[in-house]
């Protein structure tokens, strides 16, 4: 008895839950920090764009002709766009649209997918069979192609873009949650909980679901990155809103490609913005995965 007690008293480290443990590892991981910095930057810009932006996003603030588009200067850090608007302002505002489209489409897709996955995972049997065949079919089409199809079917516009991206992401979450639930359901700790008499409902809600959700959080973070890229892609292809006053990175890219020789930076800035945002969520998501994975635990 005393030996075990001594063992147990010597603390490995000021202890905590898996969450706290993950947090500790996250803080020590430079990749996670880089990701977090980019994400915070992106979200802060998105939220504060109206106050950060030096000019209105939708009004010309200088003279431009198709052959002479002023580049970066002290007044206009990123120069002007083809309609004489401040490019820096528009990139800042673009973060806002990107975030809104990304988050809304993610939430839609995640909710739909999780419901499907829950249905399949909780009922099993033929429900599972039908849902998973559907999911397989959806996953067999490349994501962006699928989104283009859905958006085109819905007629372009922001709503169409968000729904299209949501639909594309749905099967990913459905499969993830269902797989996780199946894996947890057969796990020893669920058997152990059953053995000590925990009721089925509490096992699903208190054990299986929370343990399945970590990977959903990770997937959500990663999916936000692809949603932002997909949204830009759809906008680039002209499937987004056709209101030219909306500063959207993908659309900004598309609108300036005609001036690629005279004002190449106009494509660089929104392009970089897309990369930074997507990279931030990807790095954060990957390091979250690592931090939360019990296999990586000491």
């Amino acid at each position, binding site marked *: 008895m005393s030996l075990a007690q001594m063992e147990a008293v010597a603390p490995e480290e000021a202890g905590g839950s898996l969450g706290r443990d993950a947090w500790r590892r996250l803080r020590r991981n430079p990749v996670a920090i880089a990701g977090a910095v980019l994400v915070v930057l992106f979200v802060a810009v998105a939220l504060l764009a109206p106050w950060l932006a030096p000019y209105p996003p939708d009004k010309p603030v200088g003279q431009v002709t198709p052959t002479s588009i002023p580049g970066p200067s002290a007044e206009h850090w990123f120069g002007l766009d083809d309609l004489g608007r401040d490019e820096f302002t528009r990139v800042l505002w673009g973060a806002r649209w990107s975030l809104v489209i990304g988050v809304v489409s993610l939430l839609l897709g995640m909710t739909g997918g999780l419901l499907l996955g829950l249905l399949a995972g909780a009922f099993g049997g033929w429900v599972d069979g039908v849902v998973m065949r559907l999911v397989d079919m959806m996953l067999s089409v490349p994501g962006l192609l699928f989104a283009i199809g859905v958006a085109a079917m819905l007629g372009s516009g922001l709503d169409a873009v968000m729904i299209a991206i949501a639909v594309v992401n749905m099967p990913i979450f459905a499969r993830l949650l269902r797989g996780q639930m199946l894996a947890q359901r057969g796990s020893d700790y669920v*058997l152990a909980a059953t053995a000590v008499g925990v009721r089925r409902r509490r096992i699903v809600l208190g054990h299986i679901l929370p343990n399945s959700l970590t990977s959903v959080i990770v997937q959500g973070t990663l999916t936000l990155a692809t949603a932002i890229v997909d949204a830009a892609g759809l906008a680039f292809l002209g499937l987004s809103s056709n209101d030219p006053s909306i500063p959207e990175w993908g659309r900004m890219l598309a609108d300036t490609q005609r001036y690629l020789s005279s004002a190449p930076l106009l494509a660089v800035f929104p392009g970089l913005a897309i990369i930074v945002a997507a990279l931030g969520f990807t790095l954060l998501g990957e390091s979250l995965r690592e931090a939360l994975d*019990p296999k990586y*635990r000491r």
Partner: protein
Amino acid sequence: MSFPSDSPADPVASGEPLLSVRGLKVHFPVHRGVLLRRVAGHVRAVDGVDLDVARGMTYGLVGESGCGKSTLGKAVLRLVEPTSGTVLFNGADIGGQSPEDMRRLRRHMQMVFQDPLASLNPRQSVESALTEPLRAHGFTGDRSRRVRELLDLVGMPSGAAGRYPHEFSGGQRQRIGIARAIALNPELIIADEPVSALDVSIQAQIVNLLEDLQKELGLTYVVVAHDLAVVRHVSDVIGVMYLGALVEESSSDALYAQPLHPYTIALMSAIPIPDPEVEERRRRILLTGDLPSPMNIPPGCRFHTRCPFRQPTRCADEPPGLREARPGRKVACHWAEEIAAGSIRAAASAHDPTATEVGTPSP
């Protein structure tokens, strides 16, 4: 203990075994095909097991990896659904229980798992893991006092309550698993390889803990192990399992004095004996061939593909039932008496290139 429904499945005359298993089979269907899923066969994990465990005794269940020990243990608690056969616990047939009745009944029969880390929810503190059974069965006493009491019983400090599984060593985790298993004051505990995942240096501590708890709480054990050495000292009765079935069952002492089934003889010959003279005299019995798949159990004697004593008659086509070859000793071998008497000897298989020692995992 303060539980509302304190009616142990009506105590039968104490001469009755606490646990009685008859013809238990657990077959898992194996599916093939993606579009047209069909059953391609069955894994016969448990393939007709009879056993009785008397109250207060320790039944040691031994067999190679994959022979169905865990599945048997889970089927007894009906954590997996038996394909056929009956399990009587305290005289009550667990097959006929509704899920809710089964849930209540499991208060009296608990399990300690093979992998202590996997058996604990990583997101659940020790306190929560130990109060969960109490809550589930409507324990009316002081729960946190009970948690401290349980931790003390398994030799853990009360400070462990607020901690999480990953903060402990393997041995400590198993102590927590044991604390959870005794939380409800059960009568029967199935300890599924309780020490095989642990360091050798820790194994004895856990085995001792199980023994102490048995004395203190009057527990009945089924202790599962994959080698005889672990169960030898703790078991009153030992059952040897091969490919889903018992091939020998006997009191621990008698089994050690003279194993009767060829498989047990081979298992025993793999244990080093400290006495050099005995070690010198005895022969290593090596088994030929790989362990057959539980999807494809050999007909006749299930051991005949590897048996060094195999005879040209009966072995390959007539399944030997578990029979009482000597008083109190059950063997599933047609030739047990002749082998014991020495009139049938093991084929010299030591030079066979495919010969393997028992327990050597097949590639």
